[in-house]
């Protein structure tokens, strides 16, 4: 009989935010990602250093302490390439602290696209190249191979599962969303419909979001949440099932929930309480899959994400600006790649990061719920404007390189 386990998976990411890049910069300056204003949240160096101080350093210290204190404690991390590039440049000590975690042998790295992109939905070839780039980067920095895949924003469908199975991944992550699960529990391993070998792990969104979104919300009936209460919820949820999958943004710890909310103490105490019962353990994503047989087959023909109440891609692709921006960007693919210009290709790929189109989302503006708009830009229209000016500059550079073709506006 396998032990009752928690699979804790944290997602580490920072995008290369586009600066206030105007049409007068287009065809003159190519530095889309370096806002000179050190006070703005468009300044990537400033944001990274701030989040390192509030989240990456204290949380990695806590994770290391927990790994040293509790032999049963384990955690899985996905770390995007755009984060690693920035951390290597501005906070190399943070890279080292992640390396120390991985070297314990109880921290697994999860695969994804290097650029945290939605390439799967636009270009399968580019998508695969970005998965490969990420695997290479992880190998270079951490010396490990990845075997479980997660797609950007946990955007998942049957086709993705089929691809991951064919590619050779042994596991894949998705949202445990009720309308898809119906009577089923997210606390089991499943076999994606139409696959041979791959296993599916589902996020228990209630327990995950209690920490990730509700922890510091004073309007919440359960506030303040104690580690005792949360441990009992995890026990209740588990019941006779195999495991509970807690998936959330790494930055929950210290950035989304600030240290003064008590999030670090809460987490440390919870790990201790959970493991004080000798029937309990933690699993890495690979272990969870190796330990548990699939309880059944599960099909998700339509794309499900971990975002918003809709759990779809509307926050990224819901309006015409977002669709236009990505269509134009992916249209450049073959012309960009055949330049073999490393900087040009990297800039094109950095613009694929899903955050860029997320900043163009208008649904909160139109609903009047502006406070739900998390963005370094004044409005979704500004985000689109700077993005398009940068995209035009890509076209200009292409034009200069190939000496052919028009600029198309």
């Amino acid at each position: 009989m396998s032990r009752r386990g928690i699979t804790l998976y944290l997602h580490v990411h920072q995008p290369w935010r586009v600066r206030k890049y105007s049409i007068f910069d287009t065809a003159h300056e190519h530095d889309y990602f370096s806002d000179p204003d050190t006070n703005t949240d468009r300044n990537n160096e400033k944001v990274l250093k701030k989040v390192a101080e509030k989240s990456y350093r204290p949380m990695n210290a806590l994770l290391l302490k927990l790994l040293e204190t509790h032999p049963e404690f384990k955690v899985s991390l996905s770390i995007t390439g755009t984060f690693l590039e920035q951390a290597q440049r501005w906070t190399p000590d943070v890279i080292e602290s992640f390396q120390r975690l991985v070297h314990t042998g109880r921290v697994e790295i999860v695969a994804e696209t290097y650029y945290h992109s939605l390439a799967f939905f636009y270009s399968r070839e580019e998508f695969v190249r970005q998965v490969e780039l990420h695997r290479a980067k992880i190998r270079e920095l951490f010396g490990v191979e990845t075997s479980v895949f997660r797609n950007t924003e946990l955007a998942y469908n049957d086709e993705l599962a089929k691809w991951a199975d064919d590619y050779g991944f042994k596991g894949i992550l998705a949202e445990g969303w009720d309308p898809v699960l119906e009577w089923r529990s997210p606390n089991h391993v499943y076999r994606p419909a139409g696959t041979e070998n791959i296993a599916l792990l589902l996020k228990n969104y209630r327990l995950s979001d209690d920490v990730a979104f509700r922890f510091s919300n004073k309007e919440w009936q359960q506030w303040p949440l104690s580690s005792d209460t949360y441990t009992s919820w995890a026990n209740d949820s588990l019941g006779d099932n195999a495991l509970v999958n807690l998936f959330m943004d790494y930055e929950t710890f210290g950035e989304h929930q600030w240290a003064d909310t008590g999030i670090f103490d809460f987490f440390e105490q919870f790990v201790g309480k959970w493991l004080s019962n000798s029937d309990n353990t933690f699993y890495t994503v690979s272990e969870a899959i190796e330990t548990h047989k699939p309880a059944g087959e599960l099909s998700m023909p339509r794309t499900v994400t971990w975002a918003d109440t809709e759990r779809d891609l509307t926050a990224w692709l819901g309006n015409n600006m977002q669709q236009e921006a990505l269509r134009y960007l992916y249209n450049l693919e073959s012309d960009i790649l055949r330049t073999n210009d490393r900087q040009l290709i990297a800039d094109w790929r950095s613009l694929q990061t899903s955050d860029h189109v997320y900043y163009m989302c208008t649904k909160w503006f139109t609903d009047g719920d502006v406070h739900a708009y998390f963005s370094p830009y004044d409005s979704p229209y500004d985000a689109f404007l700077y993005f398009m000016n940068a995209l035009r500059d890509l076209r200009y550079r292409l034009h200069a390189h190939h000496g052919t073709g028009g600029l198309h506006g």
Partner: protein
Amino acid sequence: MACYHMSKALAIAGAEIDFVVPYQASHPDTEFMTVHGATPLTPLERYGLGAYDSDMLLGRHLKDADANDLTDMRGVQKSYIRFVEEFVADNHVDAIHAHDWLTMEAGMRAKELTDAPLIVHVHATEFDRSGENFGNPVVHEIEQQALMMADRIVAVSNITKSIIVQRYNIPADKVEVIHNAIDVDSFGPYQYDRETYRYLEELKREGYTIVGTVTRFTIQKGLTHFLKAAARASEKYDKFAFLLAGDGEQRNELMRLSAELGIADKVFFTGFVRGKQWRDAYSVSDIFVMSSVSEPFGLTALEAAHHDNALIITRQSGVGEVLNNIFRYEFWDIDTLADQMVGIATSRALAGELTANVKREYDRISWHDVAARCMALYARMKSGVTV
């Protein structure tokens, strides 16, 4: 215009209103209130006096003005005050609601005579009207007195409130912000027929983007910055035409400037427009720019939104406080304005999203909400207003 809609909504909310105007005219569609004409002037004679242009004032104090000389704005005001004095002697009033400097003195006088609470409603201060200049000291003095004497002040935006607090030294808690609204039903039936501005329609068929503004050509409106931005935008994208609908003291200067900037053939001056020409100016435009240096509110932006324009508005314009689906810029920042215009002109998606989303926003703003807040204000005033 704002006073008309506000009074109508107030009447629906149950208020009895005596509305005193400084001229004689028939007033259709005003059965909800009693309109009193305080002078024998016609509206045209009265507006010829330049109430919005304090340069036409000779800087005289009211005691020097002749109430019988109605060719002079100060004379009209004096006669307006006399009318109000006689009116309050014969009638009971619960509250006095004075709008801007033209009626502030009458409001103060009425308060002296009746001890009814005085509400001063600020649609614009002399600082707004004079753009980057100081403005007329006599008008400043009238505003200062009235703001100090008022029991309560209503400002049409947070921008106006901050001017009242910072430049007239009025305590912030005495000032309430009630944004203006728009009553699209009052526009009447309308079908855009593409006739009035046929040349511009032809340009649109050739792929041009029409950038319009409908305004008075005064320094307050920041139109020289707008023209400079127009020239800057045209460097990057040549299919632009700029429609300046309206008239005012700056007209010749603006014409000269557009020639100097080399964009004279792209800039269209309509002169003063009203009725169909006025509405068609919005309808032919794709983008509406409010370039004001200081704009307490700016109803024209809501009118433009109603006519399917994408909006670009200075951060110095109050209407921006009630809209989210717009571009904003600092009035002096011509590069940003140019960038935003080029962005909209070169992306159908951006233009479409801005236009559709702001249209869903602006008609949530109603004069009935304005009236409800005014009524609540009257009810809170010290002498127990009965309505």
